[in-house]
């Protein structure tokens, strides 16, 4: 598991690079470090390895999820050039914490022992609590950090309790050991196991912000500095779903009849709350928070209808969602910073008024990412939704399918509000200035979204 070790070492290196006089080196160094970790991830391609006395397991699925996480992190870091000019910012600390949180994310993706899952969740969460409050002068950011910390610590405690009960029931922390326990005791599974599953699920669903454990999401996403919101809504969500998938598909597949009903109900609740509440938002960032809840709902459909197609669908959907989210936040960052209103940065929908006329490129990037999130054909998001819905159809859960399609039509409404604002409203006269490198990242994300939308077969057969 070279990436974990590398990222830990790189994080410490970055921390001490912060003591250098010039901050110019930090951003390229971080990008190189993430690329190095990404390259070493692929060393295990095509093979299944157990590492460190059954602590971690790498297979193609884990490698693909790791790739999505590292790619998202790469793009988020690439969009962070504003830190260099900001006097107050301490980029070395931010980057070090980001790399540490990536260590946690990779552990959540490829754990084989539940202890590794717990430590991974902890590292990821601790880093995110700090980054949520990284804008120390803004009361909103402080509020976000405090809310996230209190709720997150509580959820982690519940999850740990669940893991302890699972150990009590099965006598092992190893994921495949729990699986064999479930199969050998198919008719007399200990009650502790059921309680453990429920508590573990509550903790994990909190981390991916599924309803009814979503209450923290809008305030935290809203108050956190935009860049870290993008990180939070892509990396944390992808890692959380990878962990949920591993634990549900390996350990608890034998008691599928126990958990699928609960999960299906939570899925519908998540879709309903996420989509309907997003309609009423005036702030774009808050709308993205509710949209991230609704996307957690779509991903949950894949888990509810656990089958052979699920992993492919989850990988594709996470990738499509991450690309679109990062480019949306990328545009939001430059626009909100340069079109300020009386309250400081303007993160409302009206900040985008007339953007397409002044900055055709930014308008196009935003439009593609909104179309992808809404699931319109020719974008990656469409195929992501298509694959997710296919898993539900394969399993024969049609009512959830109908409900999800209904909810995604609601989604089209609020995503199109942005497009309408950009193309059909009059806005500020002067165009928004974008740094060249920033532009390349946005273009790359958009091109990837379109390529995956035109040729969804590119990822087929990899897992």
């Amino acid at each position, binding site marked *: 598991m070279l990436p*974990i070790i590398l990222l*830990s070492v790189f*994080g*410490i290196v970055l*921390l001490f690079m912060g003591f250098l006089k010039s901050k110019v080196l930090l951003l390229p160094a971080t990008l190189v470090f993430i690329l190095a970790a990404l390259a070493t991830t692929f060393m295990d391609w095509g093979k299944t390895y157990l*590492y*460190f*006395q059954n*602590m*971690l397991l790498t297979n193609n699925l884990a490698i693909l999820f790791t790739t999505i996480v590292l790619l998202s992190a790469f793009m988020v870091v690439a969009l962070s050039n504003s830190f260099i000019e900001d006097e107050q910012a*301490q980029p070395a*600390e931010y980057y*070090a*914490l980001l790399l*540490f*949180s990536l*260590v946690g994310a990779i*552990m959540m993706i490829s754990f084989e*022992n539940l*202890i*590794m899952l717990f*430590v*991974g969740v*902890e*590292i990821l969460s*601790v*880093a995110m*609590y*700090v980054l949520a*409050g*990284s804008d*120390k*002068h803004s009361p909103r950011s402080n509020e976000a*950090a405090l809310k996230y910390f209190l709720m997150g610590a509580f959820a982690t405690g519940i999850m740990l309790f669940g893991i302890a009960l699972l150990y009590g029931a099965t006598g092992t922390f190893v994921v495949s050991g729990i699986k064999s326990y479930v199969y050998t005791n198919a008719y007399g599974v*200990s*009650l*502790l196991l059921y*309680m453990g599953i429920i508590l573990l699920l509550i903790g994990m669903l909190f981390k991916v912000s599924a309803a009814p454990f979503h209450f923290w999401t809008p305030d935290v996403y809203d108050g956190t500095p935009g860049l870290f919101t993008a990180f939070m809504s892509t990396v944390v969500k992808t890692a959380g779903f990878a962990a949920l998938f591993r634990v549900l598909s390996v350990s608890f597949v034998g008691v599928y009849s126990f958990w699928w009903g609960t999960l299906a109900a939570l899925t519908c609740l998540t879709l309903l709350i996420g989509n309907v509440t997003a309609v009423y938002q005036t702030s774009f960032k808050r709308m993205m928070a509710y949209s991230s809840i609704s996307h957690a709902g779509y991903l949950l459909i894949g888990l509810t209808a656990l089958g052979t197609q699920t992993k492919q669908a989850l990988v594709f959907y996470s990738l499509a969602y991450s690309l679109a989210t990062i480019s949306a936040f990328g545009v939001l960052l430059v626009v909100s910073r340069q079109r300020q209103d009386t309250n400081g940065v303007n993160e409302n929908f009206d900040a985008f008024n007339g953007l397409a006329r002044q900055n055709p490129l930014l308008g196009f990037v935003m439009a593609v990412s909104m179309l992808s999130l809404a699931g319109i054909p020719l974008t990656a998001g469409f195929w992501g939704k298509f694959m997710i819905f296919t898993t539900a159809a394969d399993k024969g859960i049609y009512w959830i399918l109908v409900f999800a399609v209904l909810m995604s039509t609601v989604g089209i409404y609020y995503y199109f509000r942005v497009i309408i604002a950009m193309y059909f409203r009059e806005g500020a006269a002067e165009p928004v200035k974008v740094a060249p490198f920033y532009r390349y990242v946005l273009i790359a994300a958009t091109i990837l979204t379109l390529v995956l939308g035109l040729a969804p077969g590119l990822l087929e057969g990899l897992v």
Partner: protein
Amino acid sequence: MLNLIFYAFAALTLGGSLAVLITRNVMYSAFFLLLSLIGVAALFVLASADLLAVAQVMIYVGGVLVLVIFGVMLTHKPKPETTTGPQAARPNYILTQHRAWLWPLLVAAGLFTAFYSLISRIHFSLFEHRAPFQTSVDTIGKQLMTEYIIPFEIAGILLLAALVGATYLSSQGDRTNNQ
């Protein structure tokens, strides 16, 4: 004898926790939490988890509780006109505001029923034969250094991240947070 000790410490834990909930003064809550945590440490000893008991006393009683009390001391006192009566003049007299009873009670009752029915229906295989007290430090030390070496080292990374985060959030905080 052993049962008596167990019930005494369980009563200490429960009484302490109950007092944390009932008292309105945050400072008193912190001190009642001390009782509760010590009770838990004693229960760990009775469950022959001695290292855990030491850790509980060192980290929670010795460390986390100090943090809690520091937190109370850092908190600004409400201005005298907001509270009335002679007690308002007392130092560190910070009252909790939240007084809703119904929902917490319902949730707690639900959880209690769930866990009680769970525990009463579970068959614990080790319940019958009582093992003599045996120190767990040896086993934990060996396991930590061999089988669980990676979680152990990664815990170092976690502590480092927490350290960096704490330093970042509270450095220069006295200039910015005191508004």
